[in-house]
């Protein structure tokens, strides 16, 4: 509260005394200059020994062995979770170290992470594909380098007893959602549109506190938006039979994947490629044996050990979401370029792309190879 009292005093002074107004202006100048000096990108720990070879965007980068480990700051989602098991496994099994990398994880929410990656403060991180498109359109210099979720993880879920089996069944129903924004809202609009519906044809009930699963469970709404590896899994674990409606079949939206800043890709493309390769190796291992991923996640986040079964169920749902049609043939990490093009068109129709963007503005090819 003292800050507001100070503000009051400053305002009073500025209104009443011109001499003090001058002092105030000097103070503001000092504060802003200090902010400018301290506000630059931080945490980009480029060593002097960092590889000089830099693959051009869109080209297949070669992974050059480095003499000294290179430090990479990696942004994961909001809180440590079993869904980040590949990163934990690659760290613990030494895949990053083998690639000459010292990896440091930071947990951030998606909007912050996208901005920090664009700024270069974080070298690489997980970002929603549907966030990358408006972000690049607004001039944030980032590129999507590898797919993590081949299937769009945002879904509509309902109890089987609701009778909902397809998007057309949502007409006139109550649908819970955290809000009319973000990837969940985009997915819901696409799903409704596939059945010739709009949000006006359903009753939207907002749950900004993300309690829509409880609302479905208690029958307060007929269906809700959520993540395939979260709310529906938990609802199922509570004993309910659950129906999940996915958007992939109707509108191919890009799911969360690895994103890096344009400047980082230019200067440290080799390191980014090595990081992607090591992560995909861990994803393959976990796909083959989920238990390995669960153990790695528990080692990284011991708090989740108390609910092993639930965590394994979440991890299994996560693994399922990694593989879409493209990844099933080209391997994990592969980017569905046609899907991205269709998504840009769809988001443009929704008014989320204020400035035109091309596929090359969004996606950097060659980083998601799986030929190891």
């Amino acid at each position, binding site marked *: *509260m003292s800050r*507001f*009292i100070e*503000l*009051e005093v400053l*305002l009073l002074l*500025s*209104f*009443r*005394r*011109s001499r003090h*107004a*001058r002092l*105030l*202006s000097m103070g*503001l*100048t000092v504060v*802003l*200059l200090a*902010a*400018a000096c301290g*506000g*630059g990108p931080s945490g980009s720990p480029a060593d002097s020994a960092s590889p000089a070879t830099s693959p051009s965007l869109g080209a297949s980068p070669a992974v050059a062995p480095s003499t000294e480990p290179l430090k990479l700051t990696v942004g994961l989602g909001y809180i440590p979770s079993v869904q980040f098991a590949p990163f934990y496994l690659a760290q613990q099994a030494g895949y990053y170290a083998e690639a000459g990398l010292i990896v440091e994880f930071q947990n951030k*929410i*998606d*909007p912050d992470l*996208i*901005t920090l990656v*664009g*700024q270069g403060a974080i070298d690489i991180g997980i970002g929603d594909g549907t*966030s990358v498109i*408006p*972000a690049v*359109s*607004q*001039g*944030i*210099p980032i590129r999507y380098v590898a797919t993590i979720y081949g299937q769009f993880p945002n879904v509509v879920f309902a109890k089987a007893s609701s009778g909902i089996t397809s998007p057309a069944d949502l007409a006139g129903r109550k649908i819970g959602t955290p*809000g*009319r*924004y*973000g990837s969940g809202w985009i997915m819901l609009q696409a799903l409704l549109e596939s059945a010739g519906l709009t949000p006006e044809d359903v009753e939207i009930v*907002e*749950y*900004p*506190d993300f*309690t829509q699963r409880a609302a479905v469970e208690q029958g307060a709404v007929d269906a809700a938006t959520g993540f395939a590896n979260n709310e529906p899994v938990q609802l199922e674990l509570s004993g309910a039979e659950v129906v999940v409606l996915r958007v992939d079949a109707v509108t191919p939206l890009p799911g969360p994947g690895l994103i890096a800043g344009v400047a980082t890709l230019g200067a440290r493309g080799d390191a980014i490629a090595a990081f992607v390769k090591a992560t995909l190796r861990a994803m393959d291992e976990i796909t083959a044996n989920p238990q390995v991923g669960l153990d790695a996640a528990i080692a990284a986040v011991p708090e989740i050990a108390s609910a092993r079964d639930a965590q394994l169920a979440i991890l299994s749902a996560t693994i399922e979401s990694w593989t879409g049609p493209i990844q099933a043939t080209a391997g994990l990490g592969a980017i569905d370029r046609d899907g991205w093009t269709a998504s840009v068109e769809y988001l443009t129709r929704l008014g*989320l792309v*204020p400035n035109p963007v091309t596929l090359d503005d969004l996606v950097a090819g060659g980083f998601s190879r799986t030929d190891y």
Partner: protein
Amino acid sequence: MTRGAWLSVAGVFVVFVLVWKGIVVLSGLPPFILPPPEMVAIRSLVAWTDGTILPHLGTTLVEVAIGFGVGAGLALVIGYALARSAVVERLLSPYLVAAQATPILALAPLFALWFGSGLLGKVVICALIVFFPVAVATMVGIRSVDARLLELGRSLRATRRQILTTLEIPAALPNIFGGMRVGVTLAVVGAIVGEWAGADRGLGVLINLARGSLFDTPLMFATLLTIALVGIALYLVVVAIERRLVGVR
């Protein structure tokens, strides 16, 4: 304010904008980190004229108005009781201080859970944040009434109501308005915090949308500018009412 004072205020604003522009030019920071002032000005103009800001502004103003009214109203009553009753002060003070010491940012999600994501939750947060400064100012103001005047009133057989309306309230008003000046700006903060914790409309929601969905930093600045203007406008309203009732201090 005199003409000279207004010119000083305008001068400070011009210096602020020039420094801002200077930082953008010298640092080379891209617009998604620090947009230049002219970009923010244009975005503000567009957002004000195309209906982006107005619906959110209306929602926030309603929350602030009701929250401030409820919080300040309760604070006047409790503040008076605190000033005039040692028992009330002894019983309530620890809770009032504890409520003030608990970060409103931590309480906001709980309030959203208890009172829902509608108007009620925001009003409660605004009222809580407004309550303390106004209650304390009221208590101090009432206690500052000259004891000899009160004695004189009683000796003239003035009723309790007469003492309240002719002695205590006029004497305490400068202090009360001091608390209200702080309280009204805090009410804006309370509404924004409440909207962050869960809402579908309001200037706090617009900041989140600009930041999290649209990645529109100039719109975020335009919204912050609007919030600042709302705070200043409400502050000036309180000052104007104070001058009308108390005179220039």
